């Protein structure tokens, strides 16, 4: 698991899944269709990512295909960081 993925995973566990066994949340666990993230939680996650990584998300970037799993989230964060010259 990459560092980005671990950071996001920790945030999701702490914020939306208090008490959950960390091993239950994997890189491929569906986050939105499973009900872990509802629409408001998704916005909270986006706000966290914007702050944590100094990024800005546009409206059409906030959806299941981009934020559906930890893998998806890490991918879009890395892509945007690279594009904005803030790559790791």
């Amino acid at each position: 698991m990459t560092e980005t993925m671990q950071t996001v995973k920790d945030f999701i566990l702490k914020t939306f899944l208090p008490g959950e066994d960390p091993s239950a949340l994997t890189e491929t666990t569906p986050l939105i269709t499973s009900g872990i993230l509802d629409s408001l939680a998704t916005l909270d996650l986006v706000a966290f990512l914007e702050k944590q990584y100094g990024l800005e998300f546009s409206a059409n970037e906030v959806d299941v295909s981009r934020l559906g799993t930890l893998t998806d989230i890490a991918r879009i964060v890395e892509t945007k960081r690279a594009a904005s010259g803030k790559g790791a």
Partner: protein
Amino acid sequence: MTSTRLLHDLLAQAAAQTPSATAVVEPGVGALNWQQLDALSDRVQDRLYAMGVRTGDRVGLYLPKTIDGIATVYGILKAGAAYVPVDPDAPPARCALIFSDCDVRVIVTEERLTDRLKTELTALNAAPAFIRLPKAGGGLGLTAALNAADAERQAERAASARPAPEGLAYILYTSGSTGRPKGVMLSHRAAMSYVEWCTEVFAPNENDRFSSHAPLHFDLSILDLYASAAHGAAVVLLGEELGKDPLRLAEVIATERITIWYSTPSILTLLTQYGKLERHDHSALRFVLFAGEVFPVPRLREVVTRWPVPRYFNLYGPTETNVCTYYEVHTPVPDDRAEPYPIGRTCENLRSRVVNLDGTDVGDGEEGELVINGDNVMDGYWNLPERNAIAFLVDRNGDRWYRTGDLVVREPNGDHVFHGRRDRMVKRRGYRIELGEIEAGLATHPSVREVAVVADQAVGADVRITAVLSITGDKQLSTIELKQFCMERLPKYMVPDRFTFVAVMPRTSTDKIDYQSLIRPPAAPVTA
């Protein structure tokens, strides 16, 4: 005055008076003028008639909020039937339960939703007919479905039905405490009485552009659809995806020049917190109406600061009465105000009382239950005689007063102040949730022995729902698994935020679950 007009008369009138004015807009997809909407809904009516739908029947609507959906609503009304809209994102099992409960003759839906719904209906021994759209959007899917049906056998032109004003116009299902949703039956008369009240208070005109944010199964949609039609004003449909996306919503309010906004406080808060409103010109807004839940004053102040010009109204009323009290919030919101605004005075077309449990009136300044009488009020719940027997207080004149279950205090100036609920219903983002319905859903989990669901709310924060479970076996259940389980059985807004486990459920001396001991004091609010 009691209206004799029907909801679909509003469409006929707009189509006759301003045929080429915009009627309904689906942002980024398309729009219809009044003549086109009238014609498309005529075709729905004719098809329904050909399928055997008659005055007094029910027709299910299982579609995303689109032009197709609106034309279908009017087509159903023109056929003399009542429309039964369900949440297109809700689990098919719950939708099937609703459709079989009120025995719909036809369901209008999309191809992709049909198979799972049919399976669930078959399990309930229900076999309604279907109109299946390849995909709803812009009215094109509906047109394609009607064309295909006509190619097989042309539907004949039928005259619009003229049900009596007391005939049912729609049934809206709300959460039921026993796990079964309850169908609130509203007549044309009830809806028209409300629409005419809106005309008096807001005086809309043909240049207005109404937002339609609430889904069709949510009673806020009645104002959006029909208060606009009554004046030949356009309604801008904010569909399920767009509706929860604050960045795009903020854009659409500007580009569509929305003049009358109506939503829950949660959505307005979402807009100010995440919508980057400062980027847009929202100067067309004349009215901001909100309903469905208490608006925390700091959040309302943020909205007013961002949008200082429009007039603000707090509208209050359960689905059973539609809006029954209202309060105009005078702006700006004073810096030192902390307590929520009143729900206000009784709508002019209704009567209200504040009563004790035994039905006697309490004085101004004393807490009691708000009960409502008048044309807006529902006929009753579909097929629930025992619920109907307790839903109304009947006075010595034989007048029926709907018991809202809301505890209020009436102030000497006639305004009502909301104090809380008499029962276990909570509001989350404007949606009504009977905690018992969540319990009934979780109780079907094979590992759950007992379940109690409680809600708490920190000041200014969202309602938080916690499910307390005692389970069989010693292996703790995963929160992720439980959320997923709920997603398959309950609407999204009912999925608990947290799950906690107890070895034994705490009980009161009378052997009931001790909910009080399960409700921990809410966490301190996060200071802004």
